[in-house]
């Protein structure tokens, strides 16, 4: 049995992931509740990053509309249950995934007609369009956003009320739901990437024309990936509303997509787990930056700048055995550009 390039290549990697999940599972009992909430936020970010990684790592499509699907997922909960009348999760979660998936289907159907630079700009514009609708009209509380009733955790008539827990444990339910959803998201995407579907996507990433020549309808595969990624982003957005009980248009802004992409780059572009590592690293970075200075964004910006220039393969790509690769990447970043045809130009010409 072969494994996909995005997944751990040996049992050691899978064990590391399992240990990571176990550590997360017992973490709330050993840290103050503030960090429980923070870890929940990091896990939600990790879900968003994972879903966009299906596009970036799986199919080589860089979308800037992804944050909008995340926001649509969160807003779906708001539209279903404005403040005061909470709905059960088994209703809101599928609804959020459905609505985000539909949005992704429509946006995807229009944007996969374009490639490379155009794809980026078109997805950016679509994301901004969804943002504008919620920002400029009074549909979803306007500019300031709105509070919503958090979905209730209920299953088969049994309802779970976080308020019944002691004060120090009230953040636990959201934490464990997020952890469960994160594990499910990772496994589902891992399964997808191992399947024929994932292999075709990888083929498209490497050479779309060749896949076309082999008889695959590449547009359909790309649209499928875009929609599935949208569905998972919607699920992450739903988790956000469950955790925070608040929505605002900023959830849809393209900065959200850019942040998710940053996490992927930070964690490692060549591994699905890199999205999770990156999300935790990025959240931790923001927290450390906040404790050191009130210029959080400046620190984040500088770290990202450094990461883009030096850390080409992300945290998951660091190999401690071979420090020469580090030196190499530093050296090559100082070289003159060579005189071969540049990648975007090549791409644009292929599109002609």
């Amino acid at each position, binding site marked *: 049995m072969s494994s996909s390039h995005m997944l751990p290549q040996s049992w050691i990697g899978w064990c590391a992931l399992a240990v990571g999940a176990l550590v997360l599972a017992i973490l709330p009992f050993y840290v103050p509740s503030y960090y429980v909430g923070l870890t929940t936020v990091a896990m939600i970010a990790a879900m968003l990053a994972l879903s966009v990684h299906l596009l970036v790592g799986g199919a080589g499509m860089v979308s800037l509309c992804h944050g909008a699907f995340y926001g649509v997922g969160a807003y779906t909960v708001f539209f279903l249950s404005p403040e005061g009348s909470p709905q059960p999760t088994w209703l809101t979660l599928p609804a959020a995934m459905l609505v985000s998936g539909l949005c992704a289907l429509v946006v995807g159907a229009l944007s996969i007609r374009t490639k490379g630079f155009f794809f980026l700009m078109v997805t950016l514009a*679509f994301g*901004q369009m969804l943002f504008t609708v919620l920002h400029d009209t009074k549909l979803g509380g306007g500019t300031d956003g709105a509070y919503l009733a958090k979905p209730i955790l209920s299953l088969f008539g049994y309802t779970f009320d976080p308020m019944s827990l002691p004060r120090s444990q009230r953040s636990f339910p959201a934490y464990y739901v997020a952890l469960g959803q994160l594990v499910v998201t990772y496994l589902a995407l891992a399964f997808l990437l191992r399947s024929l579907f994932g292999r075709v996507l990888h083929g498209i990433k490497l050479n779309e024309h060749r896949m076309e020549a082999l008889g695959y309808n590449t547009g359909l595969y790309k649209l499928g990936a875009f929609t599935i990624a949208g569905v998972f982003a919607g699920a992450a957005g739903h988790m956000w509303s469950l955790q925070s009980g608040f929505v605002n248009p900023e959830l849809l802004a393209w900065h959200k997509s850019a942040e998710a992409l940053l996490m992927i780059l930070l964690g490692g572009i060549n591994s699905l787990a890199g999205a999770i590592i990156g999300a935790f690293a990025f959240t931790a970075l923001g927290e450390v930056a906040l404790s050191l200075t009130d210029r959080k964004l400046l620190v984040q910006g500088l770290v990202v700048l450094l990461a883009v220039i030096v850390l080409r393969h992300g945290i998951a790509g660091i190999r401690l055995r071979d420090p020469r690769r580090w030196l190499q990447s530093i050296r090559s970043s100082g070289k003159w550009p060579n005189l071969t045809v540049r990648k975007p130009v090549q791409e644009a010409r292929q599109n002609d």
Partner: protein
Amino acid sequence: MSAALLSQLLNGLQYGLLLFLIASGLTLVFGVLGIINLAHGSLFMIGAYIVFFVVSKVGSLWIAIPVAVICGLALGALLERFLFRHFYDREHLDQVLLTFALILIFEEVRSLLVGNDFHSVPVPAILDFSVPITGTFSYAAYRLFVIAMCLVVAAVLFYWIERTKMGAIIRAAAEKPEIVDILGIDARRIHLVVFAVGAALAVMAGGLAAPLTSVYPNMGSGLLIISFVVVVVGGLGSVSGAFWAALLIGLIDTLGKAYGSSLVSLPLGQVLAALASMSVYIVMVAILLFRPTGLFGRRA
């Protein structure tokens, strides 16, 4: 034609021309350098802040705008030399993240230096009057001045790209960069000049816009997205495409915003108002469906 409509049309023209200054830089930088610059909107903001700073120190817009343009050229040259030059061969993703990091850094540095307050820049006294256009309608002279300035810049840009030797090299570099290299032309210099000019155009747009809108944090981010729409509609790498698309998008956006809110009272008003706020994107979708390479792009 009613005075209100005429004034909105002129506003749309002026907004579209400012968009052209921003979008032409974007489209040139992509066409020649192959770089996606999301920080282009930040350059617009930097321009507005430089003008605000110089006007508050010296008191004259006529000094402030040339200063801003020179700063823009210098900043663009520095960015190209020390950052973007190393990213020509890199993935789109790396370019997006690099420029996103630059947005964060520019915004924070701006906040460190001048704070997060709104500022206004006074219109220079010599242009602080209204020009009567019809019997009942007059239009602010400064806005007409902005229209004229943008048209002059557009004309100079066209002359530079289409009629000079350097422009020919730039067009060649956008079309077939390897041939330009083989002919022994220093492509690095071309890249430096194009990036610096693109940056200076955005900075100049910010400087011209400063007395019209107030100067405030993040003022470039909305314009950035609209400029991307302009580039998509106009066709990638085409300066004349960017010009006509900018005018079109500027008019549609202005009219959509001006009359969108008055639609709320109609039946289905909320939906119509939402559609009006999306009008620019709807145009983009239509263009994508029927001409995926943009109005002036090369045919596929």
